[in-house]
């Protein structure tokens, strides 16, 4: 009988504790994420790689400044200081994020004194949950050859570019396929007025500070005479404020249209050059 009473008392005590516990749990606020399906973080470390644009967007009200350099061929040896004596093709660029998904920018490079104006829009963001398995962005650009004394009128100096960037991050590895199209209003000799390419960009994050990257840009279909597909490898360094990209590439040009049109060096035959890019973002 005593055992029975003790059991009853025990059951009641457990019930009471349970009620109090549940009440206490209910009293706290339920924890809810602001964005239940957040996007994947940082597929690539910069909005443009060595030569190919990436799906990485410039955040709203941020200004991304870039300085890009490529030097002469490394096989010039010590006499040419591995290409650094041969002069650099330098591009200075600014990209402003009007929205987290939309940016516009302008850049100017040494070769052809080429000015490019471009816009990029992120249509789709890859999500952590996998509900959106890929990141998708489009970019269009107009290039203006401002080199003096060529005798060309304004329209002959223009070229146009469009690309779709499809990328996915898988763990610390990211891969982007980049079909692209370039059109030149004026070409010399037997060069093609329009070029198609399929850029491949790969990134491997080693840790928060270092990542490796590679790019390959084959021209699909007719190529300009004497030109070859472009390849490049890079080491990316995130210093907190800046992203540095130290790379070897076969092409000395800095945007996709002219990489496809003008690369005359074969990476796999040792015809590559050193270059480095610096990216810095400012908030406004």
């Amino acid at each position, binding site marked *: 009988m005593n055992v029975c009473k003790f059991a009853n008392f025990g059951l009641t005590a457990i019930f009471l504790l349970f009620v109090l516990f549940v009440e206490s749990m209910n009293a*706290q606020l339920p924890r809810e994420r602001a964005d239940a399906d957040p996007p994947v973080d940082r597929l690539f470390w910069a909005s443009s790689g060595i030569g190919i644009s990436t799906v990485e967007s410039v955040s709203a009200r*941020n200004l991304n400044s870039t300085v890009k350099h490529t030097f002469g061929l490394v096989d010039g040896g010590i006499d040419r200081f591995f290409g650094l004596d041969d002069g650099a093709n330098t591009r200075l660029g600014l990209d402003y994020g009007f929205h987290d998904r939309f940016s516009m920018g302008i850049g100017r490079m040494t070769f052809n004194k080429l000015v490019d104006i471009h816009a990029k829009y992120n249509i789709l963001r890859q999500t952590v949950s996998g509900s959106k398995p890929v990141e998708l962005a489009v970019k269009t650009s107009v290039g203006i050859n401002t080199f003096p004394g060529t005798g060309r009128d304004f329209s002959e100096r223009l070229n146009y570019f469009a690309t779709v960037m499809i990328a996915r991050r898988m763990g610390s590895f990211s891969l982007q396929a980049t079909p692209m199209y370039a059109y030149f209003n004026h070409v010399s000799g037997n060069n093609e007025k329009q070029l198609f390419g399929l850029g491949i960009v790969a990134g491997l994050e080693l840790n928060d500070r270092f990542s490796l990257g590679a790019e390959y840009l084959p021209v699909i279909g007719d190529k300009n005479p004497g030109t070859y597909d472009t390849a490049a490898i890079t080491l990316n360094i995130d210093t907190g404020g800046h992203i540095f990209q130290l790379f070897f590439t076969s092409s000395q040009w800095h945007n996709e249209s002219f990489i496809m049109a003008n690369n005359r060096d074969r990476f796999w035959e040792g015809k590559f050059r050193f270059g480095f890019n610096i990216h810095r973002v400012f908030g406004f």
Partner: protein
Amino acid sequence: MNILLSLIVSLFCGVCEDVRQDVVYITDSGHAEFTSRVPLHTFTGSSDHLHGLIDFDENLVDFYLDLSTLKSGIGRRDRDIYRTLNVDDHPFAEFTGSLSSSFDINSSEIQQVAVRGEFTIHGVTREITIEGTLQKQGGELHLTAEWILDLEDYDIEPPGILFYRVDEEQELRIEAILNSSSRE
């Protein structure tokens, strides 16, 4: 005997419910802010997604913030912050505790208060006391509080390279208007 005991418990619970105010104070749009220092530079990040509850009957103070809502004005830096705080695995900064000082609910004056409880960030929980102010205005409670968070206490490695690192001490500030809401 068992039935009688359960009846007494139920009556006891019922009586307790009756003497409560049946009012809690809640916000889902409080402001949270941190100030970080790096050599030669200071930056601030903030969020207006601070969720909070103050229940005087239960003497419960419960706040949380989804850390991925913090914005510092530079997207890339925000992503660095989220990584540093490991937001994917530990998305919330949370405080759950109770008022450790008195508060006169019938006064509309600004009153200094202190709360003591558990603060959790980066998956690490520490017992802390936070001082701040509370002011009752009509059906609202105005709350402000400031304290210093030492990153080392929460196993957070200050981001940076060599000597250029974020200071371990972060200044935290919260400000919220909590509206009265009937207990459900």
